[in-house]
């Protein structure tokens, strides 16, 4: 059965630093029967500027993103809770009372995080990793910002999943916080990495590349042999597309 026509917004980090996550996302969406388009001209949603308080800069990038997405139709799907929250919640604040307000509402209304979108489909993809033991980290903006505490659980149902202590606590990434206050960011990360290593998992899974690259970068410094994967990589094969 043919699923919906969707617009894939991969996010700046996936585009530049983790393109394999973009291809896996595409594969997962196509497995679910979606007809996927990639709106050209997409770049960054503007969250890095918004989070440090540079709202004029954030607005410039948000306007660009709104124009790119508003020229398309159907659901907009992002493999990131954080960028989804930016578009769904914070664009409203940025354009409140301006002539962009309606456009921001219109785009926000179409925008979905990947796991949220997939669990709403009739035939969501299933786990592609038979021999991995998974620990899942709930990234903050998806969990508390969008209230997505069960969609990843549903998608990981077939997985050999272990309990990760503190799995709803922040990993310490925090965007530019990781660069501005690196010692504090790393102290929070170390707590998380200790919990990951204690969980017995061989694969750490999350739904935001931002948190994951911070954690993977930390695991590499420790020389720990744990795979770090975006949930899309367990649901779609990046080589199949």
């Amino acid at each position: 059965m043919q699923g919906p026509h969707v617009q894939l917004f991969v996010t700046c980090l996936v585009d530049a630093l983790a393109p394999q996550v973009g291809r896996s996302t595409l594969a997962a969406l196509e497995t679910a029967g979606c007809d996927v388009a990639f709106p050209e001209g997409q770049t960054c949603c503007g969250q890095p500027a918004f989070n440090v308080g540079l709202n004029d800069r954030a607005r410039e990038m948000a306007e660009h993103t709104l124009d790119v997405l508003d020229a398309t139709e159907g659901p907009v799907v992002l493999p990131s809770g954080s960028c989804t929250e930016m578009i769904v919640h914070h664009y409203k604040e940025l354009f409140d009372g301006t002539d962009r307000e309606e456009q921001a509402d219109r785009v926000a209304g179409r925008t979905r995080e990947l796991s949220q979108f997939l669990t709403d489909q009739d035939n969501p993809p299933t786990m592609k990793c038979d021999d991995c033991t998974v620990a899942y980290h709930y990234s903050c903006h998806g969990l508390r910002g969008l209230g997505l505490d069960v969609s990843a659980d549903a998608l990981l149902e077939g997985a050999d999943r272990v309990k990760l202590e503190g799995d709803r606590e922040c990993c310490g990434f925090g965007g530019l916080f990781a660069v501005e206050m690196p010692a504090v960011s790393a102290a929070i990360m170390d707590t998380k990495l200790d919990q990951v290593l204690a969980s017995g998992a061989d694969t750490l899974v999350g739904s935001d590349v931002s948190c994951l690259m911070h954690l993977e970068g930390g695991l590499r410094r420790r020389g720990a042999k744990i795979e770090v994967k975006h949930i899309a990589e367990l649901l779609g094969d990046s080589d199949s597309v």
Partner: protein
Amino acid sequence: MSEPVTFLSRAEALVGTHEANAIENGARTLLEKRDRVVADFPIMEELRDRARAIRLHALNNLDRLLAHFTDRVEEQGGVVHFAADAEEARSIVAAILEETSSKLVVKSKSMVSEEIDLNEHLESRGVEVVETDLGEYIVQLAGDTPSHIIAPVLHMTRQDVGALFQDKLGIGYTDDPTELNQIARDHLREQFLRADAGISGVNLAIAESGSVVVVTNEGNGRLTTTAPRVHIALMGMERIVSRWEDAAVVLEVLAKSATGQRLSVYTNVITGPRREDDNDGPEQVHVVIIDNGRSDILSGETAEILACIRCGACLNICPVFRSVGGHAYGTVYSGPVGSVVTPGLLGMEPWWELPYASTLCGACEEVCPIRIQIPSMLLHLRQRAASEGKLPGWLEKGMARYSRTATSPEKWRRAKKWASRLTAPISSRGWIRRIPGPGRGWTDYRDFPRPAKESFAEWWRLHRGS
């Protein structure tokens, strides 16, 4: 961030220390207790909604409630003083002590007194001040400052306290909490009986009856407010509710959120001085209502932070607070609430940095019994800091450049190519071990992924493009 002031330098010095470990353990213990009692209390969510409404109503009617409260206190024979700032508050307290010939003062816990540096001021005028809350007593003995708004010595282990008592009180070492408590009690008992005046904070003032409520777990609040001849209650001007019914709701959520108790052990209500047929109580009751920057907060976009009931749950759940503790924040109010309150009370310079001491994880808002939208306020304060030009040049210039790139698909495409090419010499198997320049902070602790040779957009253009 641009200058080695306040939070960042303090935080870096604290990370990974014995003190930070004690904070992490202590904060987690408090939070676990909170979670347990809340899980066992089905109407907690409803009570939180009501507590929020009560506190917001109080803030919206503050002038009226304070006027009503003042009338009621004075009807009971108490005296109300208004202090516009810390200096005036200190002078008022000093004058009361002078008029009543008070030389020895016992204090129960008061964050406002810390805010206005009261002890130092009184001591310089020859008044002896004795802290009677066990935590505050330890802080005073150590010559330290509180590290948490409800648990002042969260940064110390019981072994630390044992060593401190041995050193300062000349007694044998013990780290048994019951024994330590008894030692402090024995020292304090005598002071209570000798004290001329007692100074307390105020958890809540109740407008309809002119009462102040002081909650404690040790009973020291009751002795402080009843044994000496004079009682001085210090309250931030926002710490008021309309009615008894409202106070009951707030006290319920306060105890559960703060320490995981159903209610605090002692809820002391002081309504005016001792009456003729009372067995005990002070001859004089003074309530000092302190503004000290609160009016400014009230008229701005972070006004809602004044609805805070000082339970400390946002500190206990905050990953940043747990990693460094309250001393990193540089003032008495720490953690997420402190990062909003301090710039409001003391100004953006140098406190603008505090709103950046957060990952914006949102846990504070989730746990706050009043559902105060702390992350939104942190973002608002960041906007203010940025618009006042507080951010380091590299960040402001870098973000302007990033925005110019990200608003032009062609520049974006080229930038990705260049980023991949330029990082080739410093990368190994797809990862960078050391980034030069402002990004260095990342690679001081973590590897950074090398920008891909082929971005997703490029891949799409080649394989799926029309």
